Every structure is written in structure tokens, then in C-alpha cells.
């Protein structure tokens, strides 16, 4: 069956001629099916920090003397670090996440990343998202393959909302055989205008596509209108987030809020993705205050708000963050840092064994640095994600998700 299915790239597409089965079983039993799925299954939320976030100033190794000698003006002073475990501490702008660490929902992995040595943003993001560092020929993404791996184990019906990206297009992470949906604004996901009832033009379009003999467009159309109907049925116009959430007023917070909205709406969301830019702090990155601090504040507050918003549903969520590489250990000549290597990942969730910083710390003495300039990697990021997907999505076939990585469950960090 797999060989007769076509293989889809960035935006994903639905079943082609020959696999006419797709729409039929989706349309009727949708709510019942997705209710079951959401009761049993756990959901994965992935956040990509684009631009190479400065992991050393985010999860600060404040006991390392070289951290201070290498970053004379941008290091976070010991007194202002939010201590986590006596060695590492959080940047003070991340106060919102500290309680989650104390409550043991938040785990951190440090000195992790992609083994490929590229320092090109584009290449590194590509490699990280495709899940095959160094291989340019991979066209799909690790999360899409993880969902495929899940399908190998468990056959259950899925909706058009199974894999959702908040943004204008489906990211490489979600590209592949499993159809993924990109929504930039939940309220606008309709044709011919918002509203509780479909606009007449929407009904006209639906009839057209439903009757079309163009099988590709017919099934894409079916899925489109099904998704619109499903979403409309949740009355998105009147949705309000939980009163305790307190999202900041930023585009990233809006995306997190909408992810929560979709997760809570029983639409069958299994994997959600969004990203946040502005991390490429080559100059004037600031220390306790400044560019990076502002970015971290938005980042932390939005994630904390999301956590509160999910309420009891947070139990079934695992949220993971990543960035294509870290930044140089030394600061540069313009008050910033340059492209580096290892970075920190956050893993937050109801089933996460939080309250700990995982991974082997490579040290920051000159001779311990990667190529004499960056933090060295001691945990391949695929080991972290491999554990997350197998424990969250039940995607146990690691070779499918991360081909060539030769991941061994015995080597998981024990995060989830």
C-alpha cells in the first residue's frame, strides 16, 4: 500500500486516484472517532526557534568560570540567574517557566543539537526539520514520518486536523505523506467570510468540488470543506481562552493560543507546530535586558499561558522546543554572538519527568569547545525527539522517523 501512495512534499496533499477510501470514513464518524483518539492519545506540540537561539544565555551554566570570562559584557550575572539545580539557571526573563520546572513538568536538555557542522541557517534548519542531518535529498519531515510510524502500529481514523501548523505554510517538519494543514488564523479558515453559517459561495464551491471528476481536487476539496465544517461547528468566533491563561499580546502568543483552541476543540489534532524568529543575535544581544531578554520573555510567557490555558488537558500534551544550532561561547566584537553548535531544548508535558537538566555537560574550557569556538554536542537531538515521539505518539519505529540515526531506546534520557 505504501508504494502505491504518492509521496507529498511541503504542503502535503490528500489521497490520489486509487486510494478513494480517504474521505468516506472521515466524514461521518468524525466526532466520535476523534473523541476517542483524544482521550487515549497524547498530543505533541513542536516549537522551532528560527535563527539559532543563544542556549548559553537561556540555560546559563553559571558555575562555569569560562562562561563569564568568555562573555564579559553579555553573560548573566550569577545573582540574577534563576537557579535550577545548582549548576544551571534560567535567564531571568524566563520567570514564567520557573514554576513549571519546580512542579516537575518542565525538563531541559543541554548540549544537544544536530551533529552536522553546517553553520548555514537554511541548511541547518533543513537538516533539523527533515531529521536527516547532512542529507539534502530528504524531502519530508521527521514529524510527518513519526505520524507514519504511529500508523504502522495503530490503525485509527484521522481528521484533516491531525497535523496542524500555525502559519501560512506547512513547514518541512510536517511535510510528507500524511496531509498537514497550515492555518494562519483559525477565525478566517472559511470561504467567503466568517460566520456561523457558510456563505452561499462556499456552498457553491463545495458542490463544485464534491462533484468534480478531478480526483485529486475532489478529495482535496472534500477534506477542505470537511475541515471548515468541523472547525465552524466549534464556534471559533466565540471561543475564549481560559481566564487564567494571560497570554501576552504578541504574534507568537496568538499562535500558541490558537493551538490551544484547536487542541481543546476535539478536532483530532495530534501534532501541532509553530515557530518564532528573531533569535539571530549577532550584535547587541544584551544580557539581563535587551533583545534576547525580550524575545525570551515573549517565549516563556506565551508557553506558560498555553500551559495554563490547556488546564487539565495539559496532562496529555508534550511540548518540545528546538533551534537549528546554538551560538558561539565567546561573545563577538559587536556585543553579540555568532553561529555555534550545541543548544538547549525544552520538553514540557504532563508525563515529562521534569525538574531536571538532562544531558552530559561537555564543559566550557577552551579545549572542550567544538572547533575551538562553540559548545560541543553530547546528545544528538534525534535522541530527544525519538523518545518524545515514541512515548507521546506511540511512534516506536525509530528507523522510519529518523532513518540512519540508529537510535536505541535503551539510550533514551528518560525524559518522558
Amino acid at each position, binding site marked *: 500500500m505504501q508504494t502505491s501512495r504518492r509521496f507529498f512534499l511541503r504542503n502535503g496533499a490528500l489521497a490520489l486516484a486509487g486510494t478513494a477510501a480517504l474521505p468516506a470514513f472521515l466524514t461521518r464518524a468524525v466526532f466520535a472517532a476523534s473523541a476517542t483518539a483524544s482521550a487515549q492519545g497524547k498530543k505533541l506540540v513542536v516549537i522551532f526557534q528560527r535563527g539559532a537561539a543563544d542556549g548559553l544565555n537561556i540555560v546559563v551554566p553559571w558555575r562555569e568560570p569560562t562562561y563569564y570570562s568568555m562573555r564579559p559584557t553579555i553573560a548573566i550575572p550569577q545573582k540574577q540567574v534563576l537557579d535550577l539545580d545548582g549548576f544551571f539557571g534560567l535567564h531571568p526573563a524566563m520567570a514564567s517557566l520557573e514554576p513549571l520546572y519546580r512542579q516537575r513538568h518542565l525538563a531541559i536538555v543541554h548540549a544537544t543539537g544536530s551533529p552536522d557542522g553546517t553553520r548555514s541557517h*537554511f541548511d541547518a534548519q533543513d537538516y533539523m526539520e527533515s531529521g536527516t542531518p547532512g542529507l539534502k535529498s530528504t524531502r519530508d519531515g521527521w514529524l510527518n514520518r513519526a505520524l507514519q510510524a504511529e500508523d504502522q502500529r495503530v490503525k485509527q481514523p484521522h481528521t484533516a486536523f491531525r497535523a496542524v501548523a500555525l502559519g501560512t505554510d506547512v513547514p518541512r517538519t510536517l511535510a510528507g505523506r500524511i*496531509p498537514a494543514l497550515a492555518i494562519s488564523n483559525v477565525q478566517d479558515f472559511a470561504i467567503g467570510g466568517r460566520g456561523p453559517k457558510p456563505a452561499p459561495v462556499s456552498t457553491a464551491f463545495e458542490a463544485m468540488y464534491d462533484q468534480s471528476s478531478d480526483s485529486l481536487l475532489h478529495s482535496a476539496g472534500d477534506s477542505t470543506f470537511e475541515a471548515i465544517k468541523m472547525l465552524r461547528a466549534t464556534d471559533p468566533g466565540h471561543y475564549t481562552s481560559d481566564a487564567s491563561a494571560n497570554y501576552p499580546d504578541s504574534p507568537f502568543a496568538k499562535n500558541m493560543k490558537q493551538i490551544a483552541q484547536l487542541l481543546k476543540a476535539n478536532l483530532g489534532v495530534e501534532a501541532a507546530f509553530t515557530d518564532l524568529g528573531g533569535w539571530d543575535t549577532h550584535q547587541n544581544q544584551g544580557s539581563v535586558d535587551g533583545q534576547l531578554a*525580550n524575545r525570551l520573555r515573549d517565549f516563556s510567557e506565551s508557553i506558560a499561558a498555553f500551559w495554563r490555558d490547556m488546564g487539565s488537558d495539559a496532562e496529555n500534551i508534550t511540548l518540545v522546543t528546538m533551534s537549528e544550532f546554538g551560538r558561539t561561547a565567546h561573545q563577538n566584537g559587536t556585543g553579540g554572538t555568532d553561529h555555534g553548535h550545541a543548544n538547549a531544548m525544552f520538553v514540557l508535558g504532563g508525563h515529562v519527568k521534569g525538574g531536571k537538566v538532562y544531558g552530559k555537560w561537555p564543559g566550557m574550557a577552551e579545549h572542550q569547545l567544538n572547533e575551538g569556538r562553540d559548545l560541543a554536542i553530547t546528545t544528538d537531538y534525534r535522541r530527544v525527539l525519538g523518545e518524545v515521539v515514541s512515548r507521546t505518539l506511540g511512534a516506536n519505529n525509530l528507523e522510519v522517523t529518523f532513518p540512519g540515526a540508529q537510535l536505541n531506546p535503551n539510550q533514551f534520557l528518560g525524559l518522558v
Partner: protein
Amino acid sequence: MPSYNRFNNGRRSVSRVRAVAAILMAASLCNPGLGAQAAASSASGTKIDTDQRILHVLNRFTFGATPGEMAAVRKVGIDAWFEQQLHPSSIPDRDVDARLAEFPALRLPVPTLLERFPSGAMIRQTANGKLAEPRDPYLSAIYNRHIDLYEEKQAKKADEKPKMATDTDMATIGIVAGQAQGQLPLNQKGKARLDKGRPAYAELLVKTTLALPPDERVKRILTMQPEEYGQLQDSLKGPQKMLVTQDMTPAQRELVEDFDNPTRTVVRELQGQRLLRDIYSKRQLQEVMTTFWLNHFNVYLHKNDEAPYYLVSYERDVIRPRALGNFEDLLVATAESPAMMLYLDNATSTGPDSPAVEKQKQRVTMGKPAKKGTPPGLNENYARELMELHTLGVNGGYTQKDVTEVAKVFTGWTVDQPALGGGFKFDETRHEPGKKLVLGKKIKENGQKEGLQLLHMLATSPATAHFIAQELAVAFVSDTPSPALVNRMAQTFLKEHGDVAAILKTMLHSPEFWASDVYQAKMKTPLEYVISAARASGVEIEDTQPLANALNQMGMPLYSCVPPTGYSAKAEEWVSTGALVTRMNFALSLATNHFPGIKAKWVPGHLEESGPNQSEQLLEARLIPAGVSEKTRAAVIDQATGQASGLPTGTTAGVEGNQGNMPIAARALSPSARQTAIERQNAQLAGLLLGSPEFQRR
């Protein structure tokens, strides 16, 4: 009613021969070979250019058939038309030339463009005293404004204090965080943003500014302080924004936009000219091939501060003049372009044994500190993509060792002072000495000539011929082109030494191109969709921005494909739930004049008295000459009928107290109200047709 295709602008009278041909055509859709039946049915035995064949050629080799183009091809025949298209300079293009006169900046050489529309780097360097300030008073005003903005931003970064998270502070934090985010446009609103206490003044400011004659208005704006200018910008409501530059000459308008945001002005003009050419140019094949090669030799718009400027020249001087020429010529031109050398990081690639590195080593052993950005080393990015994406293809038989050797060959291929828009330069000091071994061939040490030798080797390789042939076949014929076709095209490539025109002709004359399962079978990419919608609907465009925005939403932003692979030409890439929603909404917005600056007219004279059926027929003939299915037609007409009664579809039966299913013509309306009603009805029909499954394909 048989669903035969209506090609003649809605005129039902077709000649007897044509009718026979057309009916046979419809029947022949089940049989292979468009035109085969028609040729057989012709009494004289000469090849008949049936309208379906013409439509097919136009759909594939232009950005969308228009009634005008079809008439033109009918007149001279497909072969003659194609030959003419292969010689674009022989085709007058007055309409497009007039439109492009709006963008004088795009004619400038890169250093001048950079100087007049300063990039972030130019502003920084001027602020730091490394560059002299301009003498021209207008330009000086522009520089001063942006230097002020830059210095303000620096000051802000330096002394930003953290705020503890409280509810009242959320909004402020959000704004600050939002502004700092790298994704936002450069346009900084002045401090006036938070100064909401002076509405009366703001209104007066807008009124008096807009009332000035253009010459005065330019001066007034360019001498505004940041606060005042910010207030002006903030107080302008949507359509008013266009009034700021109303009646100005193109040069004046550019000055005002430059004042606002120099780089964005360049990007807007670059994207605008591309859209206008694609829509209005008579030299359609040249534009189609320019798009093809820009994608094949992809360069990303935001790679660095200078990329937008270099892209202006890249398209204008490197790609377009060679789009229908010789492949090797084009390949070499891209290899010697600053745009490509910077995009794929070759400009800083340095040979490990080059004089520059030797010098560096000496410095370090002598105890001197290493220069910034060192140690310089080999960068393999261009070398790899040159072989993987530009020539041989990923299966073209090269190894990692070859990549490294090719990288060595191209060391020294760099750019002279890129921050100032300098041109290509070969830097001997970066060049790796010694001979190189690539794909089993020895390349003797010979400076820049090594690269030219290598490019010749790649351009004439059978693997390249095959790779390019495959790519062209996918773009023009089918997502899964037959190996026979691709081989034939590859043979032409080799025989005619990479002559693009010859390869295209081979394609045009191949039976595979005319197979019935190829007709109307390719899914339109977002660019093809947006442009064909504009062409078909004959819109008059004053502002291309809504089209550029639509492309962003559809996932195909212009010049903004990040990886060097470029955008795919295959259906699977572009069909998805999100994509369909965006396309349908776009179709509705375009047709119902929802985009300011883009106007469609849906009331040709003889439509005045028509009912929904006739309107649909006429619109269908104009927008989708290949015709739509009965189902689509029914859905569209249903919608129109529902509209006529003013009720949602499906509730048209037995309604009392209104005009029911009465055609607009029969209702008691004043002439102008009738006109409006017809226009609105037709706009919605058009929107439905442009969003139909049939219009997604070409």
C-alpha cells in the same frame, strides 16, 4: 446540451468545419492524440490549428490564454507564433513598457541603486562615519531619517529595562517584543505611535499634506521629523495611503517611498515589475522562461542586506536576456553573478593553501591576532549546488570528493565590496593553487579559467542534458514525463549545444506534448494561478501588492524560496486543504474588486439584459475557454439564481413577496441599480469560475 468547448468569445456561430472538428475533438478526448482526429477530418490534409491545440500551447507556454492571444495565434498559426515568441525583441511591448515606467529605480546599476535606496548596511556605515553622507538634499533627508531611526534603535537596545509580567504591562511588552522580532517590516513608526492625545492635529496634518501639489508634497514629507511622519503614517486610513503619492511622477513617488523604507521600496518594485510583466507582456515565452531559470538558479531575496539589490540586476542583466539563449552562457553568467556568489556563500570561500590563508598563518605565528571572520576556509555550498541543482542533478555521478575539488576550483570567485554593490571579481589571493581532479578529469592550475573549464564540462555533460530536459518536461508537459520525451529533449540539448529554443521546439513537436491526457492536466502553481486569474479576468492593476500578498499566503512568495532547490512544479506540492481555501478566497476577492488598486469589469455592453445562464456562458468563454464540467456550471448557475432572488442557494422555490427567480432585467430597478446588480452578479459568477476545479489546471 453537448458540452463542447466554446472558444469564440461567446459567439455561437462557428464555421461548419470548426464545428465538426470541435465535436470530433470532444469525442477524441478518450483517444490519444489531440488534433489527430481533426487532421484526419480535414479535407485538404493540412494540419489544422484547432482551438484546443492553440489553447494548450497558450496554457503551457504563456501565463494563461486570453481571448486576444488566441486570436493572434489563430491568425498566424502555432509554429509561426512560437517562432516569434522565441525572438522577443521582435515583439513590440508598449503596454508593459508604459507600466514599467513607474519603476525608474529598476533601471539603475546596483551600486547606484544601493546608494539611492540605502540598505541597512549602508545606513550603518554612514552612521559610523565609514561612508560619506550624500550631497543631494533629498537623498540627504532620506539618509538622515534612517540614520536617526538606526541610532534610536541602538539606544533602545542599550538601555532597555526588564518589566515584571503584570496584566497591565502585557500590551506594552507585546509591542516591544513584536517590534524587536526580526520578521516585522523595517518601517518604524515614530514615537507618535503612543501619542494618541492629538487627533485634531493629526487630521489637519493629513489634510494639509494631501492638499499640497506634488512638488510641494514631496518636499514637505521629506522634511518631516520622525514624530510628525509617524503621525502622518498612523493617521492614514487604507485607501488614503495611495493618496500620499497621487499625481506624483514615478521619480517623486520613489523618493517618498524611499523616505519611508528604502529596501522595501526596492523589493516592492522588483516584485511589482515581475507581476506586471507576467500579466501584461506580449513576450510571454520570455517571461515564462525567465521564471523557469530564476527558479532553477534560485537566489533568496533576504539572504543578506544586499540581496534585493543584486536580484534586480540578476533578473534584468543575467537571466532575462539569456532565458531563450544558450544554457552554458546562462550557467556562466549565474556563476559570475554577485547574487549567486553571495547566496551560496562562495564569495568568502578561500583555498586552504591559498596566499590569503598563508598570510593569515604567518600573522598568527608572529603573535598577531587573527582577523575577524577567520580562519577563512573552503566553503562547499556553491560547489555542491552547482552540481546537484544547476547541472548534473543529485544522481549525476559526482562524489563528495568532487564537491571539495569543485569548491577549490571556485575559490577566488567573489564579489568586490558587496556592501556597496560591487561586481564580480576574481581574487587571486583566495584561489587554491595546484591542479584539481573533478569527475575523473584533471584541471590544471589556471586561475579563473579553471572555473570556466569546469562549467563547460558540466554544461556539455549528458547528465546535465538529461537533468535539464527532465526539469523542462515536468514544467511544461507532465509531472511524470515519459522517458522517451526526456531523452529526445536531452539529445537536442547535446546536439544543439544547450540551445534552449531548440529544446523547447523539440518539446512542442513531440507527440507526448499533444497527448490528450496532458491537456488541462497540470496543476497550476500559486504563481501560475494568480497570474492566469489576472490575465483571464482582464483586470486593470494599479497596485500589485495584493497579488504579492496572495502569493505569500499561498506559500510561493516571490524571490523568497529559501533553499536553492527552488519551487517545485508538481501538483503534489501545491494541493492541500489550506491551499484550496486560500485560492478560493483569492478568486472571490479578485473578482469582486475587494483588492484596492485592482479593478475588474464584468459588464460588457451586451450582458445587460442577460439572465444567469447567459452570463455564465459568456463568463465561462472568457475565463475558461477549455470549458467547465456540467457540475461546475450547474453549481455556478445555481448560485446566480439564488442571488437573483436575494436568498441563499437552495431556498429559491415558492417565495412570496419578493421578485423570486426573476432575472435582473425583469425586475423593477432603476437603470443604474440594474447595472450594479448585474455587475455584482457577474462578479460573483466570475469568482466562482476562477475558484473552480477546472481553473486550477492548465
